[in-house]
């Protein structure tokens, strides 16, 4: 009899846990719905297929970088070099192609370079024990310099048809860049949530020493995350160049901040060890939808800064209040049970 009650309690506890996790992202989802309703009511074209595709295209590069940041920030790392690296990669690939190196080898060379940058970042963090924030600030400066240097500061036009096609091609109405992002979200979301590698990222972010003592290899995992980020920036930069029809050394400034903001909005914490890919997806959607909407409904440009800040603050505050409430409820429940 007693055993049965315990069982039941256990179950209802489980239920409440499941509900809580499902509800984890309630605020974000709510905000997205509100944003869509609001902007659509002002301009009905906001909720059109074209706009949603636009929105996804605009999100495609920052989305890839956000995947990298989701991994890195959960692992209690960070990366400020993606903007420079994406610009460098796009410029390099355009340059190689313009030197009549075929498209595929150009891509491979570019990706190899991008991966090397990731390795370099990892080495600074792992070997010289630099804080990732400052280490990747170094890379940011150096790579931006190299992006300008290799093309003498001038955008490199792309005329290779295969390269241009990459920027234009669609499959089921959806551009390649968006497909890449969607597939990456699914694959890396799965890896993060369900695999040993994914879980080890949470472990080293939660407590690097504990993870090491349990037999994990934090340095290796951190290296993989940085190299992944390098590759995402490389791929994203190449596709971006294809979309713009030129490799642009000055492009993608602040890319990393847009990505980090989305990731944090999605519930990843700078202290490491918490967060999900689903949250990042919602964060990206919210920010992109909001940004596009502001232009569409013609909010004066200066007010857009304010609106963006206010949205971020509002979403984070609501999330905090919801969590506080849940905590209080759980507490009250456990006091009653005691």
């Amino acid at each position: 009899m007693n055993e049965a009650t315990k069982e039941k309690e256990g179950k209802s506890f489980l239920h409440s846990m499941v509900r809580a996790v499902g509800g984890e992202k309630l605020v974000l989802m709510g905000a997205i719905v509100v944003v869509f309703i609001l902007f659509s009511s002002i301009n009905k074209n906001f909720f059109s297929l074209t706009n949603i595709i636009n929105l996804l295209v605009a999100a495609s590069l920052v989305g890839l970088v956000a995947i990298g940041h989701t991994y890195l920030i959960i692992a209690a790392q960070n990366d400020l070099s993606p903007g420079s690296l994406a610009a460098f990669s796009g410029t390099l690939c355009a340059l190689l192609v313009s030197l009549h190196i075929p498209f595929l080898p150009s891509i491979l060379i570019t990706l190899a370079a991008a991966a090397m940058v990731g390795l370099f970042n990892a080495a600074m963090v792992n070997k010289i024990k630099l804080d990732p924030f400052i280490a990747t600030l170094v890379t940011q400066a150096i790579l931006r310099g190299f992006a300008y240097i290799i093309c003498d500061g001038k955008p490199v036009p792309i005329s290779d048809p295969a390269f241009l096609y990459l920027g234009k091609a669609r499959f089921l109405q959806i551009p390649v860049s968006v497909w890449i992002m969607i597939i990456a979200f699914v694959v890396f979301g799965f890896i993060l949530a369900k695999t040993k590698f994914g879980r080890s990222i949470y472990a080293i972010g939660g407590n690097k020493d504990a993870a090491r003592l349990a037999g994990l290899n934090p340095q290796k995992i951190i290296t993989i995350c940085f190299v992944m980020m390098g590759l995402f920036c490389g791929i994203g930069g190449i596709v971006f160049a294809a979309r713009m029809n030129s490799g642009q050394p000055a492009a993608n400034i602040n890319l990393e901040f847009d990505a980090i903001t989305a990731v944090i909005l999605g519930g990843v914490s700078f202290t490491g060890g918490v967060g999900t890919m689903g949250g990042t997806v919602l964060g990206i959607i919210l920010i992109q939808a909001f940004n596009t909407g502001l232009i569409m409904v013609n909010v004066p440009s200066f007010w857009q800064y304010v609106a963006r800040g206010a949205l971020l603050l509002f979403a984070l505050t609501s999330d905090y209040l919801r969590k506080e409430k849940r905590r209080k409820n759980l507490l009250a429940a456990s006091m009653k049970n005691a």
Partner: protein
Amino acid sequence: MEFSKSEPAKEDEQLGSTLEFKNISKYFPGVVALDDICFQAHSGEVLAFLGENGAGKSTLLKVLNGDYQPDKGQYLLDGVEKHFRTPHEAIEEGISVIYQERQILMELSVAENIYLGRMPANKMGVINIRQANKMAQKIISDFGLPISPQTKVKDLSIAYQQMVEIMKAYSRENLKVICFDEPTASLSDSEIQCLFDIIRKLKREDKIIIYVSHRMDELREITDKTAVFKDGRYVTTVANGEVSEKELIKMMVGRDLGDVYKNLDRDKTIGDVLLEVKNVSSDYVKENSFQLRRGEVLGFSGLVGAGRTELMRAIIGADHMRTGEVFLEGKKILNRSPKDAMDNGIVLVPEDRKMQGILANLSVKGNINISMLDQNSNQFGIMDPGKEEKTAAQGIQEFRIKTPSPDKKILELSGGNQQKCIVARWIATNPKVLILDEPTKGIDVGAKSEFYSMICAFAKQGLGVILISSELPEVIGLSDRIIIMKSLKIVGEVSHAEATEDRILSMSMIGGDNIHE
């Protein structure tokens, strides 16, 4: 990959294994942590490490599991020389060490912590979480604990977190050597008993078991032999019963302590009511009332999770006090924060040294002085370095803190010495009411006995002392009166004269004889 415990165990049964340390030395800047250590440990017996704080016990274990590299010497497992460069390599060879400081991942579930780094997964690395939960549940049942494998570790009490640590080490396949570094520092009796059952089981399975503790009664109960360390040197190994406890202590401390509780100067007068707590509750604890008199040492006992810590936190304003009143010397006071409490003369030495005690990155001096900012500065708020030096020096001397310099980072001290710094911090403030939450956690016997005399001396000066301790002999030995808590409420009280371990235990479990009789 298969995760069954029985298979590797069979291998071990074939022959007894030995662990041999040969001339191991390990240095830190300004410190000789290990000096030419030579001895052996054998399977099928529980070997205790005994030594003062900073004697090098933890360091030796860290050398053993590849966390540190020895500067000289080597160790052999079954006659084979081993050089582990990482804990991972040690684990692969069947060596598990449970650290003195919890090494746990708060945001992960119990099952994920237990199987950290070796979650059951398919060839692609995809985790089978249900299997992990099932396996974890089995281990939890082996231990007889009422926790679920899916619970996040941060929602567990410290004691259960510690048990998860132990389960993590225990659950490793291919286990040959298991070392416990003060595993019971945050456990209460029932968990300790279940830990001992596990250790006995491991012993039957013919593992090499190393057990570090400062609690002599535990060593008596669970260990077979004791290796004694002093100042980084190995002294000797004695079998239980071979020498008396007194002599053992003399070997490690270098002097005779006698019966620490009997020798205390308990001759003091208990005065009028100093602190009165009326119906205090918080988000974490139900309404409770009690009184503390001048010159009194008031013990608090209870099982883990009884709410002792939480009650004290509410009193000093560390948690929001929902209901109730606190009177000090008959005057009503309101502590909105620990600072208010401190200004009123009430201080709390917290139980969780790592999270709530030490200021990481700061020196020993900085740590001891942090509650003394007012006393160590002039009216313009400018610090007097001389006073700071003095407070630090006094703390280091009084508590015999082993550190090469007051400027050493506190994180580089041994666990027990860190604890001494934390206690020294609050003692330095000269409070009226001193609340001690598990203050002797990890402190060696010699220092403990000095600390006990210090508590009695405080009481004699007319202070009130509240002592929360899970070590029953300590509460009984020191307290003039003992309050027992259960399920977030005070359920009873016994005087020093009528206190016995059995009585307190039964009150903590059933809910207090005073009430039900």
